[in-house]
């Protein structure tokens, strides 16, 4: 069984648990996103059928909440906090520098599938402002100059 089939099986089990319960739509989608990293169209169809809601409702929820991704994201997701506390301490310059270093725009994934850059909302680590996250690693109290060194270990893939 391929990895994708295994993922789909897990998602089917989760859908079965909530069969016919429209109010659990977001929970099932969050579960699917955790498993696959995004919620592709065929999964949305399964969820719609299982929970007894229309596909347009599923798609509506998927596109309303910024956390749901319809396309796969990069291996490393770089989140640059643009909360107020980070912004006034210069996080825009850090975002600009990361984009420049990786030659990539915010919200986009690099063609090699390695990086996705996201301008994120406040992650609440304002004491460390300005802050970026790379997957689960947090880097704080940065200046734009620190960017190349921080990215270096991830560039190897």
């Amino acid at each position, binding site marked *: 069984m391929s990895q994708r089939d295994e993922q789909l099986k897990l998602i089917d089990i989760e859908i079965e648990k909530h069969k016919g319960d*429209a109010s659990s739509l977001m929970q099932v989608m969050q579960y699917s996103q955790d498993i696959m990293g995004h919620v592709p169209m065929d999964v949305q169809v399964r969820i719609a059928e299982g929970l007894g809601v229309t596909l347009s409702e599923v798609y509506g929820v998927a596109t309303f909440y910024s*956390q*749901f991704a319809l396309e796969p994201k990069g291996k490393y997701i770089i989140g640059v906090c643009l909360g107020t*506390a980070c912004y006034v301490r210069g996080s825009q310059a850090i975002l600009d520098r990361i984009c420049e270093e990786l030659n990539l725009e915010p919200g986009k994934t690099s063609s090699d599938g390695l990086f996705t850059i996201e301008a994120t909302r406040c992650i609440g680590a304002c004491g460390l402002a300005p802050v970026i996250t790379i997957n689960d690693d947090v880097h704080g109290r940065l200046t734009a100059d620190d960017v190349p060194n921080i990215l270096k270990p991830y560039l190897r893939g």
Partner: protein
Amino acid sequence: MELFRSHVLVCGGTGCTSSGSDVIIEQFEKQLAEHGLENEIKVIRTGCFGLCEAGPVIIVYPEGTFYSHVKPADVKEIVEEHLLKGRVVRRLVYVEKGEHPDAGKPLDEISFYKHQTRVALRNCGVIDPENIDEYIAFDGYMALAKCLTEMSPQEVIDLVTEANLRGRGGGGFPAGNKWQFAANSKSDKKYVICNADEGDPGAFMDRSVLEGDPHSVLEAMAICGYAIGSDEGYIYVRAEYPIAVERLKTAINQAREYGLLGKNILGSDFSFDIHLRLGAGAFVCGEETALMASIEGKRGEPRPKPPFPAVSGLFGKPTNINNVETYANVPPIINKGVEWFHSMGTERSPGTKVFALGGKINNTGLVEVPMGTPLRTVIYDIGGGIPKNKKFKAVQTGGPSGGCIPSSLLDVPIEYDSLVEIGSMMGSGGMVVMDEDNCMVDIARFFLDFTVEESCGKCTPCRIGTKRMLEILDRIVEGKGEDGDIERLERLARTISSSSLCGLGQTAPNPVLSTLRYFRDEYEAHIYDKRCPAHHCKSLVHLEITDDCRGCTACARVCPVDAISGEVRHKHEIDTEKCTKCLSCIEKCRFNAIIKV
């Protein structure tokens, strides 16, 4: 019960965890075991201590020694010197700015803590949030027991009403009134909701309460359930707060195990259970009707009120909804009474308020002060003032719904009504300080950019109006502002405030209106003189190297676009055509020879 001679409290809040407090705890456990101290000394991961700037922070009791900026490599020394030999590790003790390095004081004498009164944060940084016994040892669940055994539901509501506990989420609506409305609604099913969708950028009060004292919220929700006649509650929490989510899960399971949630609580005929729902990154879900739509699994779009949630809320049933900090105030009010609560704060706004202090301030962190405390006390006495001797320009409160308060108003007491009078609002408690380098037009643009992104799109004034305002602001900061732009902004602001469906749109123009009110000259400088007084807006400044340059080449080496040239020991030049104004060179220059003009 086991007794320990020392307790090592390690902050496990998001800020300190981000800078490695997990590894520090591991190191402590390892080092203590190596020295055979694991039965003498206990390591506890607590919630946030508040002074995030000094993180990761550690307190050693019984001495109350406050260590700051601790690194995993320092643990060995703390164990071998302090815990084994009783010698405090001086170099790691927190010292206030301007004090002698040996002046490390106990926690309650440090200025950051001295001016605070902790009610909502009473247990944060004190107890182990993952251990219900510790919460119980600090009077936890006593208020619930008192309500169930000694008070009628109406008496509980009357007490909360009399206390005049106002909604800490920002609006300041009296919680007791809300509870009364929900109690008055007749229905076979009612719900209690905790709004933990803390979306204001730069605000993390609720997260810290959930991380540091989750049981206080559960207890208060159960009390509310008893008061209004509900048996089911939901906590809607941001998915961006993984630590808070985990601790809530643990707390709910423990409370169920102890019979403090579930059927027949404490042997009474009152039953109440709580579910957790995660947000998915939509700011508008902090609005109560949008939040309820989201719990129902739908797009989080607000709907018109009335009907209010107390009449028709979640799944169409009467619902009471309060925010985290409001709930956290309820158990102490029940335990200690109305008079105690009124002894803090002002007549119109009794009690305390938690603020997340951030931005250009020395002591970034969480502070809780009595209502009515002047902004100046929070920023200078507790916050320690502005770093690098810069000049204070403004403090932003209320997030994207609030406004910027200038230095002339720093003595205004902080309470709901006084902040509204000066064009800002309390909001949930974000307080972001700005100095002379921050451009107020750009800050207004920043908030509008946020609202445009987060507008749900349901009503036209918010969806299209805020976009038009942003376009004007974008033009102004790019140096393309025109005569009449200020008036256009004001006209749009009035229309959007008066005609938007929900609070998000109604308050969206506030950052623009308040900056126009206090910093109009900055707008005019951008529009008419094509000049940014704070030298922030990239299109309106360029960099120059002055005669102070010694030709050390540091700037040329750091420039990512090779815009700086010059020979060693000779004055360098910047090619303004190539320069991207990333400012790396200014940071590198040791002679302050690069200036913005």
